[in-house]
């Protein structure tokens, strides 16, 4: 699972003999831990690190790639002992335990530099805790409804923008013998995405944030309204059956086979859908519809990040690496379609020509006035996220239990946020 590759300065010096010398000569060892274990992101990261190494021949860089799921538990060990100089993680509340335990380095100084302050302003909020910044983002991606355009055309449907249109569309899809949405809730978080959207559209971004921070009761009527909207879809048979048994990948074939018309998912779902044989003529994207016309649209756009552990030994080189990662050129390069296929965080970068990335970028930059959320399990504290997503899953299977579920979440809220 672990793999290492070393790039010694000597090996690289030959290949970059003509590169311009860099002003500040960095020396020593730079150890980088990555959770980008899937083949494509891994290759992207390794190529990026090679480019960084080429600029700093005096630096001995050691990269360790750890399986994405295993990383989530291993990070607790390696932040305290045998610490790397740079490590990947996630923004917002997800980094809070490590910030509070003093394990992440305060990098506010980087954010004060004009290069970063001017170009990365949009993600600054997600990296800020207690008024300080604790890392830099390197990629983010939009969420939204990916749908089968050919099925919509066959049924004479167009992209909905309001809740009424959404329900009318869904009714027609159900009548044609399909499910409106595929979803696999075995690992719970997919249901969190649905809750994010329904609640942000029903009650707005600020309310959603307050709920994630434990400031609002789960038995509040506004929360109940969110669930009532959700129940409308469930009762009409909008979701595939037995979704509690599937992972998000296992739910993909329903859409590929045309048994379901759409999928509320992050942009990472596009690659497997294409690989499964759907062409860009069959596959399209629309922004989740407005429900309450009085609240501004807000979106989920999870951000992946780089951090410097507080116990790192080569912080100077680590800072230089962070500057390099967020630079406009690198951002364009690593987020393009051939690499991560996601959105660059630097405003000076260009977005890939891919139609989903273009639509996502437009949506996030001009049609998300309410704000940008990370994702339910990154915005809410881990414990609350776990309990609530279990509740969402139960609700999607047994919508009539809603009062019991909300009472349970309320009890959990009282316990979790008290300290």
């Amino acid at each position, binding site marked *: 699972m672990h793999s290492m590759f070393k790039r010694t300065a000597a090996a690289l010096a030959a290949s970059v003999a003509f590169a311009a010398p860099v002003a500040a000569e960095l020396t020593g060892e730079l150890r980088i831990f990555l959770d980008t274990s899937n083949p494509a992101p891994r290759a992207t990261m390794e190529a990026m690190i090679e480019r960084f190494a080429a600029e700093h021949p005096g630096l001995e860089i050691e990269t360790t790639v750890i399986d994405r799921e295993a990383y989530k538990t291993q990070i*607790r060990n390696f932040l305290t002992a045998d610490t790397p100089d740079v490590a990947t993680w996630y923004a917002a509340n997800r980094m809070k335990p490590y910030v509070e335990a003093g394990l992440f380095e305060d990098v506010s100084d980087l954010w004060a530099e004009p290069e970063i302050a001017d170009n990365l302003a949009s993600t600054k909020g997600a990296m800020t805790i207690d008024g300080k910044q604790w890392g830099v983002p390197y990629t983010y991606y939009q969420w939204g409804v990916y749908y089968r355009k050919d099925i919509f055309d066959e049924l004479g449907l167009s992209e909905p923008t309001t809740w009424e249109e959404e329900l009318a569309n869904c009714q027609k899809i159900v009548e044609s013998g399909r499910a409106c949405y595929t979803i696999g809730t075995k690992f719970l978080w997919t249901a969190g995405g649905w809750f994010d959207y329904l609640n942000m559209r029903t009650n707005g971004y600020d309310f959603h944030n307050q709920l994630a921070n434990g400031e609002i009761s789960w038995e509040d009527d506004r929360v109940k309204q969110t669930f009532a909207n959700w129940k409308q879809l469930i009762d009409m048979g909008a979701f595939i059956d037995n979704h*509690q048994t599937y992972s998000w990948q296992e739910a993909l074939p329903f859409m590929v086979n045309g048994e379901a018309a759409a999928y509320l998912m992050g942009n990472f779902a596009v690659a497997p859908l294409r690989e499964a044989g759907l062409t860009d003529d069959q596959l399209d994207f629309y922004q989740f519809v407005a429900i309450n016309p009085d609240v501004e649209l807000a979106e989920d756009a999870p951000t992946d990040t780089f951090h410097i552990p507080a116990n790192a030994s080569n912080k100077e080189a680590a800072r230089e690496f962070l500057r390099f990662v967020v630079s406009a050129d690198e951002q364009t390069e690593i987020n393009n379609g051939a690499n991560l296929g996601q959105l660059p965080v630097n405003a000076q970068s260009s977005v890939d020509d891919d139609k989903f990335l273009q639509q996502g970028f437009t949506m996030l930059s001009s049609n998300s006035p309410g704000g940008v959320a990370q994702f339910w399990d990154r915005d809410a504290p881990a414990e609350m996220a776990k309990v609530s997503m279990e509740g969402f899953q139960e609700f999607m299977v047994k919508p009539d239990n809603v009062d019991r579920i909300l009472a349970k979440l309320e009890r959990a809220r009282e316990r979790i946020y008290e300290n």
Partner: protein
Amino acid sequence: MTIAADAPEQESWFHRNQQRIAPWLFLAPGLLFFMVYVIIPVFQSFNLSLYEWDGLGAAEYVGARNYEDLYWEWVDRDAFYISLKNNLIWLILYLAAIPAGLFIALFLNQTVWGIRLYKSLFFFPFVISQVVVGLVFTWFYDPTFGLLNELLGLFGLGPLNVLGDERFVTYGIIFAGLWPQTAYCMILYLTGLNAVDPEQIEAGRLDGAKGARMLWHIILPQLRPATFIAFVVTIIGALRSFDLISIMTQGGPFGSSRVLAYYMFEVALSEYGFRMGYGAAIAVILFLIMLCFIAYFLWSMYREERGH
């Protein structure tokens, strides 16, 4: 020089006590490791269960708060209650592996051509990893293309989503667990059957014992040691049931297939966990339950020893 000459007459302390010390010396490495890896961690867990600790920051002493929370979860019919209830179901139903193993062993305890192959085929599920068993059964139960629903369909029944329905999920997982566990019990009984005294069977036969009576009065008493071991490993196996749950359902749907061991992992070590103190409190409860059985096993072994 003179002092040295006196020395051999006086036996050294070690020499005098050699008989008493030697066993302890031989036991020392084992005792040391048992202390370090078993006894001390037990007390550490007890201690940790009185704290609230996320594994990173400072631990905060909260007294019996964690146990209080567990109590309220019990009262509210919440996760802890479900885990405990499922543990009980596991304990009871998992014991079915013992009679099942016995009957397969009796069935295979004959000399026909190729019996070794049949025996190894029956033993096969115990050899393969639990993870594989879990995956195979997950596919077997799959609601859309699983074999189970195909079979039920033949009789006009179903479809049944075993792993997605909170009423069936625990039974579905236990059934998967019984597959390798039965094989384990079978092998225990097969070795036991080798040691059955043929003279006693002969004597029984002369007295007219047959079939069930022969099994109950002549064979089973001689299989007592095998039954005892099968009982021990099955009870322990039921209480440690973790891997199958983790592979097949992750405790779902909505937490209805959790058992204490899995709940402890979820609370303390999983992606959304890190309530170390709370996890330790669950571990202590699990330990106390196991202690009842361990005490019983030790006691019956002690009785056995004295009997001889």
